[in-house]
């Protein structure tokens, strides 16, 4: 495998991470923990499969994924903001709910407990798996663009300023008339829609939905956010790093050089190291996780 193939493979793996991490940064910067990114992705992946299957067009799948991810995120937002439920608990519940709902509707719609039938994806016949296939997939372009876009929104627009204020010092934002609750709802809903796109990429790329197909990718995205110290660009770079490690692992699989399980651990170990402040303190938004009652 040459360097170009390596790069193509890395990008291919990184796209869902980038999308989920970009969404997650918005949510976390607004003060809401992104524990349920995994659930948004899974919901998005399933909705994309359903949409693409019935409409016969991947674009409808993409739209469905945005709706599906967004709905799960809204449920999270309502629980955490309106009902002041513990964000960690609700985040986990949303993940379990996504697993349950996708399994249930997989049975209901496709009468299977493991996977959907083949669904249309974006690539053309004979485009292969290299750069051509990547270039033909609009979700790849969205995934590449999403990090700069989120960074621009966060640092250059009034909405981004408000998101940062709300996640850092909500009382101060409130005192100058920023609608804290509304900003948080919007940020979380956006995070679900964008992470849902990451899920759509997975099912459309593999031409089917399979049970629990996100396989912890939402948590890798969360790890990238923390490792990137809640900055979208740094989080994006962390996604690329993690994806490169994974590509390397696939490369090494035949060689027995390093057991694949150790490469698998890299993102998680790096995140713990970052959290423990061994490579500089990871500074979370001050109000992160604090919508809870008392």
């Amino acid at each position, binding site marked *: 495998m040459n360097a170009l193939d390596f790069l193509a493979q890395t990008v291919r793996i990184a796209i869902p991470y980038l999308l989920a991490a970009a969404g997650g940064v918005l949510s976390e910067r607004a003060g809401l*923990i992104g*524990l349920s990114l995994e659930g948004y992705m899974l919901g998005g992946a399933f909705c994309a499969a359903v949409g693409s299957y019935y409409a016969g067009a991947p674009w409808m799948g993409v739209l469905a994924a945005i709706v599906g991810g967004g709905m799960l995120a809204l*449920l999270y937002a309502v*629980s955490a903001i309106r*009902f*002041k*439920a*513990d964000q*960690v*608990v*609700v985040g*986990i*519940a*949303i*993940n*379990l*709910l996504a*697993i*349950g*709902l996708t*399994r*249930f509707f*997989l*049975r*209901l719609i496709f009468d299977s*407990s493991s996977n959907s039938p083949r669904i249309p994806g974006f690539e053309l016949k004979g485009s292969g798996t290299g750069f051509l296939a990547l270039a033909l997939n609009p979700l790849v372009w969205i995934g590449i663009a999403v990090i700069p876009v989120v960074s621009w929104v966060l640092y250059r627009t009034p909405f981004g300023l408000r998101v940062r204020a709300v996640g850092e010092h909500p009382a101060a934002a409130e005192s100058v008339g920023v609608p804290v609750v509304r900003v948080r709802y919007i940020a979380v809903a956006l995070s679900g829609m964008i992470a849902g796109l990451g899920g759509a990429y997975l099912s459309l790329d593999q031409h089917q939905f399979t049970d629990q197909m996100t396989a*912890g990718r939402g*948590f890798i995205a*969360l*790890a990238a956010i*923390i490792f990137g110290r809640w900055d979208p660009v740094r989080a994006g770079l962390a996604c690329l790093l993690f994806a490169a490690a994974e590509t390397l692992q696939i490369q090494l699989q035949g060689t027995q050089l390093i*057991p694949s*399980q*150790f490469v*698998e*651990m890299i993102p*998680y*170990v790096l*995140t*713990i190291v970052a*959290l*423990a*402040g*061994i490579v500089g303190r990871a500074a*979370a938004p001050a109000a992160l996780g604090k919508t*809870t*009652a008392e």
Partner: protein
Amino acid sequence: MSRRTVIEEAVLPPIVALLIAAVVGDVLILTFGQSPGAVFRLLLEGTWGNAYGFGQVLYKATTLVFTGLAVGLGLRAGLFNIGAESQLAAGGFCAALAGLLLPAGIPALLCLPFFILAAALGGGVVGAVPGILKARFGAHEVIVTIMLNFIVLALLNYLTSAKVHVPDTLHTPELKSGALWRLGDVMSPFHGSAANAIILLAIATAIALGWYLFRTRQGFELRALGLQARAAEYAGVNVARVTWRALAMSGAIAGIGGLNYVIGYKHYYEEGFASGAGFLGIAVALVGRNHPAGIVVAALLFATLSQGGLAVNALVPKQMVDVLQAVVILAVATSVPEVRRLLRISRRRSES
């Protein structure tokens, strides 16, 4: 505020949550074109209605009691242990290794303390890591335990597949001695179910934890830390020590839960046996309001749901149960603050 209202605030949310879950369940059943009454009747018959089903409920509840107690202990200290799954797996793995080290032919009851020690050590070490990182560096235990789940499971996967597995399987060789009896060996109607003697250990652990939390000085300090960290500091509680000790103990309890599968049921460690039990432990602790007695009840409830899913699979997909479990967690999490708020409003009204 009186004792009655304290109890109301503790007990009402889970009841509200179960009602919500029942409604959601009805809707799902109706979407599948079945009658809710029939499905729930079948669910009960397949779980508490026959010895085999009940045995399975007991077996599943046993693991959940351990992970539920582990999460509950952490929460009492104000710490969120999301790593129960990997602690459970590590405990089971260590117990299986211990079983390989023992010579054959030792009576099971003599082996048991050795297994408990090995499992507690395995889970306890995994729990102590986030505890120490929190106490020493202030690293948030939620993220660390999540990340550790992946790390530890990958490590166990490596150790099993590269070092100790039986060829062509994902499990270790069987214990040389110490395999415990199953319930079916003693009471024949339970034959075939996985329920085993570890259930007694689960109940003993729940009682011991209740005693520890509410009767000992360490428990007094641990709960004070969980309720009001600054007051605990004022009261001379060594916050760092209590923090890491609580998480290590939490991990050890989850680790001992691994015996249910490894020593009581299959007699070997297998990849993925712990899958999902950590997250369900959170649900169990939440519904059980972090009280050992409540946790035992909640473990039975979730075990019933999980086994009941299999029982109703002919009418509605068993996956419905996955949805209901998530709905219960969501509903408890949202109704705890809400019920408290509403109760306080109504109390204020009735006072004025």
